[in-house]
């Protein structure tokens, strides 16, 4: 355990140093420190196997994990990148995006009303569930839990820190601590690199942003967006932009009128399912005087990157930054992948 603390302490130090000056260059300079603790640590990186899941429920994770079921795309993605794709025996239907990286006979389940019998029949060692499944506090997996299967719930994270903790939790459950530390610390370092640039944005050039998850129409009359207390709001904070609904709390459905009145400088369209959403917004009646529409600052962003709460939100944040402040972020060359690999190498020695 001591060694683990050493690694974490060093990394924490790294982060604090990194936020002070340039995160990316300093990482390499600090690598010596890492190496000194890293070399032979990997075999011992046995952060204790969690006894509580992220929702605070008691769980008993088996020592050996051979069969995993993941009921959220964000978790599926992390597991695949941990190199555990071949151990996944079941997924939720939304995770089917990654089907080509999974065993051919992987079972698919509905996230909202999973077939608990069929899941139990696969005799999984662990089932990862997400906040998207629980409705009003009742888990649709209750009968599975009662049958003694280890169900590890990961409620939807509300902050970047929460995302990092979730990755560490998944890593601890499946015995991939080194990777988990690398991913979560990689994300933290990457974000502090972005924050460094945002600090240089002059007060009078700060832009207000509205992120919309649909184009309002008679069929979808309200606009889905978010306020504070969400990791997406934190993404905007990090890059130095101001969420127009930042005074509200949580995920929101706002009226068209309120969105127009908010008069954002930039509109980001977070809806891959609707091709040409940005152009549709520009053509909306009554929006022609909104600054973002007037100045043509309506952009389509990748929903896959930002809507799955795992380390890839780092890439999403950079994408948002380049849309909102192309002037400030166009030279940014930091790569989440590089930092991640770097950190992992340092840990593994």
């Amino acid at each position, binding site marked *: 355990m001591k060694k683990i603390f050493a690694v974490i302490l060093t990394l924490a130090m790294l982060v604090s140093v990194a936020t002070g000056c340039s995160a990316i260059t300093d990482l390499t300079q600090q690598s010596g420190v890492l190496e000194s603790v890293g070399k032979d640590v990997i075999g011992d990186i046995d952060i204790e196997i969690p006894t509580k899941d992220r929702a605070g429920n008691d769980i008993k994770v088996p020592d050996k994990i051979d069969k995993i079921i993941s009921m959220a795309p964000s978790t599926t993605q992390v597991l695949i990148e941990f190199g555990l794709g071949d151990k996944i025996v079941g997924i939720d239907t939304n995770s089917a995006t990654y089907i080509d990286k999974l065993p051919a006979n992987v079972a698919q389940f509905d996230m909202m009303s999973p077939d608990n019998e069929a899941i139990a029949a696969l005799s999984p060692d662990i089932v990862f569930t997400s906040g998207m499944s629980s409705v009003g506090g009742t888990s649709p997996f209750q009968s599975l839990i009662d049958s003694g299967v280890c169900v590890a719930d990961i409620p939807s994270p509300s902050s970047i820190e929460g995302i990092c903790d979730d990755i560490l939790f998944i890593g601890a459950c499946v015995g991939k601590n080194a990777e988990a530390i690398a991913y979560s610390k990689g994300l933290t370092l990457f974000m502090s690199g972005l924050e460094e640039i945002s600090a240089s944005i002059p007060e009078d050039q700060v832009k207000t942003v509205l992120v919309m998850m649909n184009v309002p129409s008679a069929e979808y009359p309200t606009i889905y967006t978010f306020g504070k207390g969400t990791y997406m709001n934190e993404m905007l904070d990090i890059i130095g932009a101001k969420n127009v609904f930042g005074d509200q709390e949580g995920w929101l459905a706002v009226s068209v009128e309120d969105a127009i009145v908010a008069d954002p400088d930039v509109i980001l369209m977070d809806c891959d399912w609707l091709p040409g959403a940005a152009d549709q917004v520009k053509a909306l009646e*009554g929006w022609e005087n909104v600054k973002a529409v007037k100045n043509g600052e309506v952009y389509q962003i990748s929903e896959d990157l930002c809507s799955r709460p795992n380390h890839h939100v780092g890439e999403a944040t950079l994408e948002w930054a380049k849309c909102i402040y192309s002037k400030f972020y166009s030279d940014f060359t930091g790569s989440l992948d590089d930092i991640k690999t770097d950190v992992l190498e340092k840990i593994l020695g």
Partner: protein
Amino acid sequence: MTKKGTGLKIAISAILCFFILILAIRQGSVYISLKDLFGIISGHITGKGTPEGIEPMMDSIFWTIRMPRAIMAFLVGGALSVSGACMQALLQNPLASSYTLGVSSGASLGAAIVLILEISIPLLAGFMLPFTGFVFGLITVVLALSLASVIDRNVSNTTVVLIGMILSLFVNGIMNFLSTLYSDHSKQLYLWMMGSFSARGWKHCLILFPVCVVCFAILMLTSRKMDIMSFGDLQAQAMGVDAKKTKLVAIVICSLLTGISVAFTGVIGFVDLAAPHVVRKLFGPSHRIVLPMSFIYGGAFMALCDLISRTVLSPREIPVGAVTALIGAPFFAYVFFASRRKRA
């Protein structure tokens, strides 16, 4: 009740209704002075454009977003309560409503099919959902009426109401079955069914308005027959009214009104039930007055409910169907029970 008293009440109601409509247009996330509001409205009507000194943003908000919405709410509320008033008279049932014959379940099924299959006909661009909802709503009613005429040659009220209820439940069953099978769309369907006036523009008003005018005119022409029919089919027949024909025609017209409202805004309850009863209490049973007053009261009530739905939790919106039920149900219960106690 003297004629003079009724005239005064009508005048007060009309003024009140106008006041509510202005309030509904004016209140919202941004404030506007009455002078600016009338400036914007007259600027658009006369074609002169927005008067100077008014921000273009204000113009978009009031003319493009809020006015059509408020007027839409008014028209839908009016249409629903007029058709509710007629149905109550035609079926001699105080609990009959625009939805009794399954318009809403039919329309919901149509909407569900469109949402699930993601069908779109380019010609109908943006009107696919209302169009299908409308067609399915009418089909359900026609089906209910034909079934009723087959089973019961006189098309008695009990038969019509029963068949309507059975068919509604059946169609609802199909819809629930579909929405379970395709749960991806259930949230969207649920939102549609709760009803909303958000994002409704002038193009919607321009379709609804003529339909309302024509249907209302036809119903007004049958108002005298409706008065007679409220005494029962037999009496009506004795007085020379072809009860069956009048009933069928009027029901189809009512369903048209309800169908088009539901199609544009979703299923909004209670206004069709509550408004006519309140009007009857105030103005007596004559349909010559009940129908236009139902329109005014229903419209004003709906405009008010929409105002509440978008302002109370702003920037969030409460589905207007929830607001009408929350306010309408207790109010309706009060009116109903208060009159009972008086009678006792």
